[in-house]
C-alpha cells in the first residue's frame, strides 16, 4: 500500500500552540475532506483541539480557502490558521 502523504502548515498562535510550523502526515484512507482531517488532528488533544470543526481556526487547501466539505488527497498542502489580522 502506497502512503498518502499530506503537507500540513500552521500559522500564528496556532503554530505556537501545536508546537510546530509544519509536518508531513500519512493520510488514513477514510479521511477525504477537511472536516475529516480536522477531526483526526483535533483528536490528538492539547493545542490541536483548536482545530475542531466549529472553532475559529481557518483552513486552506493548496493555498485556497477551504470549507469542511473541501476534498483532500495525496500531495495536498493543507494549512490551518487563525482569522487573519493584516492590513
Amino acid at each position, binding site marked *: 500500500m502506497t502512503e498518502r502523504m499530506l503537507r500540513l502548515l500552521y*500559522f*500564528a498562535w496556532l503554530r505556537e500552540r501545536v508546537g510546530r510550523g509544519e509536518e508531513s502526515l500519512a493520510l488514513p484512507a477514510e479521511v477525504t475532506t477537511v472536516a475529516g482531517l480536522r477531526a483526526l488532528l483535533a483528536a490528538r488533544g492539547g493545542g490541536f483541539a483548536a482545530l475542531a470543526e466549529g472553532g475559529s481556526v481557518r483552513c486552506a487547501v493548496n493555498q485556497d480557502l477551504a470549507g469542511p466539505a473541501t476534498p483532500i488527497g495525496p500531495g495536498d498542502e493543507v*494549512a490551518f*490558521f487563525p482569522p*487573519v*489580522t*493584516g*492590513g
Partner: protein
Amino acid sequence: MAVVRVQAEPFEMGAEFAALAGGRTDIGGVGAFVGQVRDAADGRRIVAMTLEHYPGMTERAVSAIAAEAEARWSLLGCTVIHRVGRLLPGEPIVLVLAAAPHRAAALAATGFLIDWLKTRAPFWKKEEYADGASAWVEAREADDAAAARWQQLPA
C-alpha cells in the same frame, strides 16, 4: 496588471505613486492608503509589531484581491505592498494605490482593497508590549463588517 509585493523592506510612497501614475494622461484620480504601526493599542504601549504570513498563499490572495478591484472598478492600475517581519512604531505596514479615470472609482477601490486585505489575506500581527509581554492581535468584527460592505455590487 496590479503590482503586488510582500516584503520585509520599507516602501517609498512617492516612488510607488510615480511608478503607477506619473505622467499618465488617462488617469484622472489616484486613491491611496498607508497603514502604520502605532505605539499603543487598547491602552497598552507597543514597542514592536511582527507580521507573519503564509508565503506562497499571500501573493496569490493579494493578487486575487487586486484583480477583483481592477475588474469591479475598471481600474487603470493598482499597487498593493504589504510588509512582513518585525516593525517598529511609526513604520509603514501596508500601501494601497488605485488609479482610475475618475475619483469615485479610485477612492472606492482603495477602500475595498484595504478592507479585503484585512479580512482575506493571510497575515497575522503579534504585538510586543513595553512590559515584555506579547500577544497575537485578534480579528475585529468591525473589519469583517467593513469588508462585508463590498459584497454588494459597486455603486
